[in-house]
């Protein structure tokens, strides 16, 4: 009797969750489903299966987005920014936790405060400072901007991770004659590797998805990123859903794939990151 009841509860729970999940997932399904339909069918039969598979929608969207250039730019910018963010944030976090000074405390406060600054107010001054360095409208300018802005959050999470590193290990290494650099690279970095992965993914998603920094730092056809190209495409071909929808699918495909491949790691990492921070 009791077992029965548990079963019933379990089934209700499963079905309930399934329904919510389907509603959650429906927008993606609809977009993907319609991305291979001819325009006329998109307009008249949105829920039906494609009558003809229009794979050429994708090649049209690929060309319209200028995807090969745009993809290269986005990959270069996001990967280099993320590596720099991680590396710098780890150094800062390590130093703040293990070698606190008056300066590092002030710096920490500034970093935290910067999380609340609206980007619109930084936009033009940022372009100005970057241009005095000769870096505006260049991939490098975009990368440095992402690093400067992403540093705060990453440091915040890294600090938690570094705190969890056993001090005894570091002290033992010091006694063995390691200097701080070696302690950092050989002891601390390997231990906080899981946090690295989490932040890597989070920051990668952020930069991949970012529109506003790209808009002002990479405002040049040669430097366009995926988000800029998508937005431009919606300005140009917006009533052509047979181009717009495959473009959307292509822009979210990398994220979908990473999600599928690293699903468990992402979720575990985010949870532990937030808890430590």
């Amino acid at each position, binding site marked *: 009797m009791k077992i029965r009841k548990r079963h019933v509860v379990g089934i209700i729970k499963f079905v309930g969750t399934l329904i919510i999940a389907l509603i*959650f997932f429906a927008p993606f399904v609809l977009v993907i489903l319609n991305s291979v339909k001819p325009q006329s069918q998109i307009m008249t039969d949105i829920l039906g299966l494609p009558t003809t598979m229009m794979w050429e929608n994708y090649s049209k969207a690929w060309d319209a987005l200028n995807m090969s250039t745009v993809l290269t730019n986005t990959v270069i910018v996001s990967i280099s920014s993320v590596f720099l963010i991680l590396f710098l944030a780890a150094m800062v976090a390590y130093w703040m936790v293990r070698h606190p000074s008056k300066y590092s405390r002030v710096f920490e406060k500034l970093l935290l405060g910067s999380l609340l600054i609206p980007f619109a107010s930084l936009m033009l001054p940022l372009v100005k400072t970057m241009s005095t360095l000769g870096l505006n409208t260049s991939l490098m300018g975009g990368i440095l901007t992402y690093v400067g802005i992403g540093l705060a959050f990453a440091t915040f999470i890294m600090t938690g991770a570094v705190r969890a590193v056993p001090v005894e290990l570091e002290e033992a290494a010091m006694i063995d004659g390691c200097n701080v650099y070696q302690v950092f690279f050989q002891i601390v970095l390997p231990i906080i590797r899981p946090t690295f992965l989490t932040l890597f993914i989070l920051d990668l998603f952020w930069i991949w998805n970012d529109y506003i920094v790209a808009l002002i730092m990479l405002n040049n056809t040669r430097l366009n990123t995926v988000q800029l190209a998508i937005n431009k495409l919606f300005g140009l071909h917006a009533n052509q859903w047979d181009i717009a929808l495959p473009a959307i699918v292509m822009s979210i495909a990398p994220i979908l794939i990473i999600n599928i491949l690293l699903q468990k790691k992402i979720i575990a990492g985010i949870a532990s990151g937030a808890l430590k921070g």
Partner: protein
Amino acid sequence: MNKSFGKKLEHIVFLGPATLLFAVVVIIPFLISIYFSLTDWNGISKTMNFIGFNNYINIFSENSRFLQAFGFTFNISFVIVALTNIIGIGLAALLINKFFGSNLFRAIFFLPNTMGGVVMGYIWRFIFLLVIQYLGMTLNWAIFKLPWLGTEETAFVALVIVSVWQGVGYVMVIMIAALAGVPLELSEAAKIDGASSWRTFWKIKIPFTMPYITVCLFWTIATAFKMFDINVALTKGGPYGSTTPMALQIYYDAFNSNRYGFANAESIVFFLIIFLVTSIQLFLSRRKERAYE
């Protein structure tokens, strides 16, 4: 001597590059923007005049669009924060125990959180303008026949739907981890005392996870107050400007109205508002955490 130099060098190596970058990208531009906020710069001219606190006074004048935007942002943030956290905690409670497909479900609920606002907005634009309209024609249900992006109320609801859809995954993931950390003895003890699982959840588990709820609240509040790209892609601030959040209003004033100085004053005020709201939230939650300890 050599030693103290080495020490200094260590400081520079570890904090120097980060400081330099942070200064170039955030601190210096922020200081410049404070200066701009005291001028009448239009965003492009080679000249600007220092006008003191006039911009700040104008923000609080009676026809201020910024105050309207603040009202909207405050209201929608309240709704979004409440719903995101409630639904997120609910999903966490549902998915804390493993069952068939629970991992897949977690991934699905988290998926929208990994997507960007612009693309998200366009996906939902497709849903609201084409799919819903199609459903309205075929099913003839009143709810699908509403002009979803066309009235103040429905556009507000549409933005809430998209924001909550995007945010619950984050809350869920954190709360699953938090709930998993509740010692088994605690909830078992409560059960033996005859408490219902509902009561156990509220009286034992939630208080125990308070620090994590603090994190969720902080994140959802900051995100909601800074909302920008969802509005740009979904409603463009419409209908008739009623869904313009503060960040978008600042953007419009800076780039459409050629009032860059004024927009910077707005953004300083905006910064202070977020600072104030999140400080209050942290203060209240910390007090609550302590009360439970």
